[in-house]
């Protein structure tokens, strides 16, 4: 059985990618499961999608713990523990990254001995969320690495999954899938099918026995206010708004009110400050600032910019 796990950010087409690959397997005569993980599937947030394919009926369910192939459409996720790119890897797990950093560097950085391939990034867009073909490019690569899917099947799968899109969109997607399919030609059939997991050898997780608590303690009731601030939605961000205080005219209410996430606070002297732990990078503030005092900077370049201190 092939077990393939997709990682990306909401908006990069991971669900569609998994469906295209799933459909391609189906058209090639496989039994297939493809599904995204339900949760906060929001634009910019880490997204997971799974494809299982086998020639015999699939009795496994749920998320894929030990993938044969891990596909990552956004390399900024690799360092995020919440994205779980490396979780459950085995010696056999192969990685496919949509990244401009080369294979050797990734293996060194992640201290991995596993086989790893990279697909060059479509650099036309600075914002990774605008790279519309990241997902389908990964599908082309994944199809080639399995070696059991040909270009004609891939084309048909894209046409069927994107049937309601314009012919131009469909053909551009096919072109991108074909490009990576050809790029990885020499690695055809590198993925081996993983063995079926037998229920007989199943070992339950090592449960921790807990004595039952009274309902007032164990019911999912929240007793503190404002606890959502513990969730760092700043991880969703691919573009960062940066206030240039020399241009800020201290009108304060505009960016602070229009920020949907309460992530812009007003200081005592009527400047504003952006809370990068929570800013999701929607860029509404950049658009609304009347004095154009807020810059939009790609998150990967954010280290190169020195933040101006809030004037006292």
């Amino acid at each position, binding site marked *: 059985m092939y077990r393939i796990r997709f990682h990306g950010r909401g908006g990069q087409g991971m669900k569609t990618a998994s469906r295209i690959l799933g459909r391609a397997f189906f058209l090639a005569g496989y039994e297939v499961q493809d599904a995204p993980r339900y949760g906060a599937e929001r634009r910019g947030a880490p997204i997971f999608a799974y494809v299982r394919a086998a020639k015999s009926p699939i009795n496994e369910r749920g998320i894929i713990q030990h993938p044969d192939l891990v596909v990552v459409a956004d390399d900024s996720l690799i360092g995020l523990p919440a994205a779980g790119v490396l979780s459950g890897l085995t010696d056999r797990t192969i990685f496919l990254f949509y990244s401009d950093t080369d294979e050797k560097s990734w293996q060194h950085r992640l201290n991995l001995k596993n086989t790893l391939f990279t697909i060059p990034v479509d650099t036309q867009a600075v914002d990774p969320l605008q790279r519309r073909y990241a997902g389908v490019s990964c599908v082309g690569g994944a199809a080639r690495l399995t070696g059991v899917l040909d270009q004609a099947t891939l084309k048909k799968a894209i046409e069927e999954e994107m049937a309601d899109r314009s012919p131009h969109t469909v053909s551009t997607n096919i072109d991108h899938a074909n490009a990576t399919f050809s790029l990885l030609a020499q690695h055809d059939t590198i993925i081996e099918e993983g063995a079926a997991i037998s229920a007989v050898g199943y070992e339950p997780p090592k449960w921790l026995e807990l004595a039952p608590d009274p309902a007032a303690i164990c019911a999912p009731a929240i007793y503190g206010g404002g606890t*959502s601030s513990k969730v760092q939605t700043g991880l969703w961000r691919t573009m960062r708004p940066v206030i240039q205080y020399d241009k800020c005219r201290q009108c304060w*209410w505009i960016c602070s*009110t229009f920020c949907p*996430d309460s992530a812009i606070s007003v200081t005592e002297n009527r400047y504003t400050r952006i809370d990068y732990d929570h800013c999701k990078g929607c860029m509404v503030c950049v658009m609304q600032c009347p004095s154009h005092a807020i810059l939009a900077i790609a998150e990967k370049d954010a280290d190169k910019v020195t933040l101006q201190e809030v004037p006292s």
Partner: protein
Amino acid sequence: MTETAFQRQKDLPKSHLLSAGTPMCAGCGGLEAIHIAYDVLGENTIFVNAAGCMTLLSVYPFTPFRGSWLYTAMGAAPAGAQGVRDALDILMDKGRIEVADDLDVVVLTGDGSGYGMGISATSGTIDRCLDYLYIVYDNEGYGNTGQQYSAATPHAARTATSRCAYGHKGFKKDLFSILAANGAAYVATAIGSEPLDLAQKIEKAKSISGPRFIITLAPCPTGWDFDPKETMTIGKLAVRTGVWPLKEFTDGKVSHNKTFSKLLPVETYLEQQGRFRHLFEPQKKEAVLRDIQNSINRYWHEVATI
């Protein structure tokens, strides 16, 4: 003009009660309206949330609210509000809580519930003169499940369940008029991109007793298919093109809060959204666009002649 603490933009609240870190999409127009509303309502508010996008606001163990929040099934939020209101009244009667500790009961609902599944329970609360505030964040579709059409979806919009060449066949339900005709104490439309107007309406609604309704249009980057940074731009266009009239119903009368001598053509609003792209590509569907423009013109003509 009634007295208001919000005369100008600089009177808007400087600090925000709603905590960050919610799972709403980046650029959520509904969340922006709710954070303004919450600043005006204050901490002594209990929210009753019909299932929808905003039920993800409080996912155990996280909540952005300072006070209580209750989750109900899609059609049951107004009934939930009745229960909470009754409980508070009984506790006060019995002297178990001080009158000063009373809470405002606020229903939070999307358009799927507000315009559709919950409308029967909503109407019931007006019949019973329930004292509560009802805020609809209207993103014109079942957004949390992938933008299937709802009773609030505008004509010709493409949704997950309206994918034919002309988009959604039906027309947006006039919830404002339905609630007004039902005898609500207060009904208003608002939008997060006009924060002063929204703050004034929340303030006014808070000062009235009885069933009160505020319907906010919530531009939705995910469901309407536009870049999140355009949320406020699209909201402002909805007002400037006359698609979303800002109005109030009090004491049996409807009044418009923002009128324009000349509206922008509706195309400027439609062409910025992916859900209407099929009206412009591959070729422009002039007849559909004309029908949409005509219905807006007709509405404003009637407003002007009353």
